[in-house]
């Protein structure tokens, strides 16, 4: 352990050379200490800064806000903080990643510490400034990755449209929205006719290609607000917010015609394709979103029974 | 003759702190009360020429004590002792008939100053 006397020059050296900005202000906002980090980054030597008003030295600082922050430390005798996430920097300094950075200036976290006299009053405010540019870059990289991951987990691997998990959660959201705020909601379920034959006769690669092409055709028909997804093997679904049964039937018929006229082919060989469609609308007494799916499924089954390549609306028992 | 005073606070420690902050030369007879109801009992028993009154208490709080005293014709010198130091809180108790306001934590100098100001000591 060093005695106090020996420690003083050492502490002074560390304070000056530590890779953190440290400066101290008195009640008149005059700088009383300005360490090496601040000197280097601001390109203002300590002797030019000490004794002068911070806001006269750096007119570009957000004076009103910063003065209020510093005053709060004097008055409330309390720590104060700023974070790069809300305020990217206090001083516009260059960062040390000129090549790989991707941000325009050094990101900073600052702490404002009250320096109390023996009487308990705050005499000075000490500000520490930490370069968090690296952290900010990593965080935005992580955020990008999370967004991509999130997006990927909502998508069907083969077709790139939404998957069943996402469709159900969207449908649930819409269901809750309508229950709370009124409005309408319809759900379309459709199935490729005789898809098993394509798989059996032409192979799974052909089946996959047909599924991809079908999702393209369906995508081109739906409206901006609709959500299209692959519901199961050869089953697709469309959520139609703010849409009554009549509107959903028109859309469903458009889907059916587009597939029928879709000119599907595999290895230059034409593959005729049709779909069977079921449509259901949410009514005030529909108890759950699952029931809505079930009703569309019932209507889809009726389309199949009636000879396929057709659209059926779920009929509510009178 | 010793002045009968009552110290009203639900916290035993707080009453102790208050007693300690009273000027030692003041000739007094101290009664302690843990809520507003006990304070009014002390007042009716003639034990509260001066009352040091906390505001937040169970059973009956300081505001209710002030209101009751006002209704019955205030005849005691109430000094409110409170941790709620907002100026508006002080105005409020003064308008209810308190004579002075001391903020917690109490200190001897402040208590002496107020007692001298009103010629109590």
């Amino acid at each position, binding site marked *: 352990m060093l005695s106090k006397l020996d420690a003083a020059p050492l502490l002074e050296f560390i304070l000056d050379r530590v890779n953190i900005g440290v400066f101290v202000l008195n009640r008149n906002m005059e700088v009383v200490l300005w360490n090496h980090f601040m000197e280097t980054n601001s390109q203002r030597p300590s002797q030019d800064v000490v004794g002068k008003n911070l806001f006269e030295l750096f007119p570009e600082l957000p004076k009103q806000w910063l003065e209020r*922050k510093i005053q*709060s430390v004097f*008055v*409330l*005798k*309390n*720590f*104060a*903080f*700023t*974070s790069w*996430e*809300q*305020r990217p920097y206090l001083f516009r300094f260059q960062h040390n990643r000129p090549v790989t950075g991707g941000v325009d200036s050094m990101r900073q*976290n600052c*702490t404002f510490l009250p320096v109390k006299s023996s009487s*308990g009053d705050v005499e000075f405010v000490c500000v520490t400034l930490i370069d968090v540019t690296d952290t900010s870059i990593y965080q935005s990289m992580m955020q990008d990755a999370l967004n991509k991951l999130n997006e990927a987990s909502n998508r069907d691997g083969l077709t790139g449209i939404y998957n069943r998990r996402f469709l159900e959660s969207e449908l649930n959201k819409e269901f809750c929205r309508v229950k709370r705020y009124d409005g309408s909601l319809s759900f379309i379920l459709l199935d490729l006719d005789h898809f098993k034959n394509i798989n059996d006769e032409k192979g799974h690669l052909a089946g996959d290609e047909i599924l991809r092409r079908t999702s393209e055709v369906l995508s081109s028909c739906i409206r901006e607000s609709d959500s299209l997804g692959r519901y199961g093997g050869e089953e697709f679904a469309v959520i139609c917010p703010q849409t009554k049964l009549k509107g959903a039937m028109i859309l469903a018929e458009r889907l059916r015609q587009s597939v029928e006229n879709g000119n599907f082919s595999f290895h230059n060989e034409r593959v005729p394709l049709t779909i069977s469609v079921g449509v259901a609308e949410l009514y005030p007494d529909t108890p759950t979103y699952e029931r809505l799916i079930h009703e569309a499924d019932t209507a889809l089954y009726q389309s199949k029974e009636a000879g396929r390549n057709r659209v059926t609306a779920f009929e509510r028992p009178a | 003759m010793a002045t009968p005073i009552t110290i009203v606070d639900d*916290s*035993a*420690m*707080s009453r*102790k*702190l208050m007693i*300690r902050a009273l000027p030692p030369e003041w000739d007094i007879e101290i009664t302690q009360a843990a809520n507003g109801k006990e304070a009014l009992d002390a007042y009716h028993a003639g034990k509260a020429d001066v009352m040091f009154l906390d505001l*937040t208490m169970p059973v009956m709080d300081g505001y209710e004590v002030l209101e009751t005293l006002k209704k019955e014709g205030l005849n005691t010198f109430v000094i409110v002792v*409170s*941790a*709620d*130091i*907002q100026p*508006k*809180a002080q105005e409020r108790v003064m308008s209810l008939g308190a004579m002075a306001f001391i*903020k*917690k*934590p109490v200190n001897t100098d402040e208590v002496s100053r107020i007692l001298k100001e009103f010629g109590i000591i």
Partner: protein
Amino acid sequence: MSLTPLTEDQRDALQEVLNIAMGQAGDSLARILDAFVELSVPRIRVVDVSHVADTVREMVGDRHEVTAVRQSFFDDLRGEALVIFGANGCKDLADLMGYAEELDQQSERELLLDVANVLVGAILNGITETLGTELSYSAPSIMAEKAQVETLINLDQLSWSHALLLEVNYSLENRDFKSHLLLLMAEEAIDALRGAIDQFMESI
């Protein structure tokens, strides 16, 4: 409950220390917001880990969604502070502080962090000044926005079995603004706090 971490005298002393600290914090808040702050009696509880989420929900009330800020404190005492606002905490505060224009999301967050920091700092300063202890603070951060109360505390992340929970509420006169400030200290911090209270009681 098997643990009795505070004697009645210690509890009484802590309650009073907390009253005084709350008064000072309330005064700080009143000065920032230029409004009269209504204080309630602070509550002190010892909770075991399995009940902490229920206790927090009970304290905050059955509000649908909340926005919460957390901040750590350390040195002589060690723990975490949570400041819980209603889901529209940011907007309410911006209104009160007279921001006429719509604040962008980052400015709203900054405002929320600032106010939480003032409340936490004021109450803990009040405690440390009375008890003669020293504290440092980490930067506050937003813990949850428009979240359910019960999701605030993740039981899987807790490594203590008992904690001391100090609760202070602030509301504003004639305004629909409420905030709950919770200070959570785990076992070892309770020992430190108990030591500081004992010392304080001996000194009076």
